[in-house]
């Protein structure tokens, strides 16, 4: 499967929700409407800053009934790799950007008796995509959003349209005050939990649920641009006959693309499996959620979007 052809979108509106949070609304350049946004779906934006090309994935936060625009919320992070910083500082209303068709790697489970949503920080964005869908289904759900004290009012405003009569809570007291084990322990049988946020929160939910005896199939994590940084290394692209240097704050995929080599990719977050590339020499430090433990141990494939070399050099069949 190859990624669909990207299309052009125009920035219709930029709203500052908080000093580090902006909501961007896009509309199709050539009129008409967008495809129905999938629940838990995201889009890939291609951002160009001079010769530099960045591709970033963002959850769609606009509801499926609203197809004249797509909304994303972007946080400006201190050590931004470029994409979020570029959007915050350089993109203005009227600008035209390249967007790929929306994809969902974080769907709602149709057989769930109840949906428990846990967001951390900017991990609120897929939750905002879930809420109108859960409301439309008349599904039973409960949402807990972790936030810094400054973020609490911002997130409460974002959640307000869905809050009437629902169990929606924003927690500003820090992780220590959030009783995750108690929350998971009191859920009725048949509940599915969905978590998006920092890696440590997602791991805490997964391990706490496992310790309480939750089946693995009822725990769902959005991998949201996980940590791709690490020691620099050199990658030899055997078929292309070139070598690329992968910098500390750059992914293998980004280094390959910067060298002008077309590489398969879709989610850019280690989830979809599209970028699996044969590893010919060297050892991989696997950071993806796609390969099984056995496949990772076999060491014959590497997911270029998130995984790195363990050592100074690898050879891949690309």
């Amino acid at each position, binding site marked *: 499967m190859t990624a669909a052809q990207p299309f052009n979108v125009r920035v219709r509106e930029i709203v500052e929700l908080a000093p580090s949070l902006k909501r961007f609304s896009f509309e199709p350049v050539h009129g008409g409407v967008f495809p*129905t946004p999938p629940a838990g779906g995201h889009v890939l934006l291609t951002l160009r800053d001079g010769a530099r090309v960045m591709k970033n994935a963002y959850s769609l936060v606009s509801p499926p009934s609203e197809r004249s625009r797509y909304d994303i919320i972007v946080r400006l992070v201190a050590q931004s790799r470029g994409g979020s910083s570029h959007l915050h500082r350089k993109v203005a209303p009227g600008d035209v950007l390249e967007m790929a068709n929306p994809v969902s790697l974080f769907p709602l489970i149709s*057989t769930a008796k109840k949906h428990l949503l846990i967001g951390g920080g900017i991990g609120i964005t897929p939750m905002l995509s879930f809420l109108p869908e859960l409301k439309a289904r008349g599904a039973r759900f409960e949402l807990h959003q972790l936030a810094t004290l400054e973020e609490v009012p911002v997130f409460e405003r974002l959640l307000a349209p869905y809050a009437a009569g629902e169990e929606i809570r924003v927690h500003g007291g820090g992780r220590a005050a959030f009783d995750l084990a108690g929350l998971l322990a009191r859920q009725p049988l048949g509940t599915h939990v969905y978590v998006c946020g920092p890696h440590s929160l997602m791991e805490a939910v997964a391990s706490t649920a496992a310790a309480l005896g939750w089946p693995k199939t009822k725990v769902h994590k959005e991998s949201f641009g996980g940590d791709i940084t690490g020691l620099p290394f050199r990658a030899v692209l055997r078929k292309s006959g070139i070598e690329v240097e992968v910098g500390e704050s750059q992914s293998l995929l980004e280094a390959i693309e910067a060298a002008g080599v077309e590489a398969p990719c879709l989610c850019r977050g280690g989830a979809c499996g599209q970028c699996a590339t044969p590893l010919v020499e060297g050892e991989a430090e696997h950071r993806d959620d796609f390969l099984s433990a056995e496949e990772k141990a076999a060491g014959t494939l590497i997911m270029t979007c998130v995984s790195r070399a363990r050592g100074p050099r690898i050879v891949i069949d690309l």
Partner: protein
Amino acid sequence: MTVQFKPAETFRDTFTYKKSPEDLLRFPFPFPEDSYMYSVNIEPHVRGGPTAAFQAQFDVDEHYIAECKERARILAEDPKRCQVLPHMMTAEWDSLEMIMENLAADYPEHFTLSKDGDAWTWVNRPLGIQQSFIFGKAETLPCGPFEYITRQAQGDFTLQDQREDNLFVDGGMVTSQADWSLEFDIGMSFQEWHGPVPLAHEKGVFDRALKYLLRLQYGQPVRRLNWTMTVNPRLDTSPENYPVWGPDKASVTPENVAEKVHLRVELQTLYRLPRSNAILFGIRCYLTSVADIAKVPKWRRRLHRVLRDLHPDIAAYKGIPRYQQMVVDYLAPLDDGSATSPGIAPDMEKIEA
């Protein structure tokens, strides 16, 4: 060119179903080469292709009205041909949206969809339907949304729910099936419902196909062709009705084989649905008699070679051994032994009526 519908043709008893010359040339002939073996023959379902059957997302041809009437008749006799499990309601609405929007875009002369927020109006001119309803409110339609729209489309449809790294056939509209039963299969996993297929399991075809389909992306539908053979142009070859159509196999003689035996092709399409993350699986059935195939030199040579050399286990699974040799004997003198071009295109522009 506007298609001329043939509302009176029948797919049982009198069997007045017939293909016009234009309809024959748009047939999705299933063999890209002179031999056949199972494979994961999946490709992107994009508009345009080797015949006109690939020009739309959901193909409408001259048999549209007659096929919808036959479906209604089968459902009246056996309502269980359409079943959807309760957790698939979101997938039902996704399907209705997907089919209505594509029919309206591909055939504006036949179908119109207008929307004012959630208040939608659907116009189906060939069937004389105008329906206003509220999207998401099943009580505003005369039946469930999936049944409603698949009553107005050619071909069978199933709904696959995705969970636990597997697909489950949790709904369907199945009235033109090649001998499988929705009533029996509903709720089964991918491996379970493919259980009876020979050879392909050993080749790992289903494991690879499942992995591929679990990653099927929204907005990037895929398709494949499947085939079997059917005696008489009968759409409903269901296990439930085997006593009705099974004996037909014994009616084939060397004299009537070309008119009686039909190549039955399924244009199978797979769509990821947005709200539900389910997969809509279309199984569009095309029937073409051996006599009609024989009007296209490339197709008759190739069908002859495929059937002559077919693996006996595949022939047995498809239920054709009783008359297979008669078809081969009919086609053999029509195969001049010359080479055939790769792919399924008929390699001719026009057939004289």
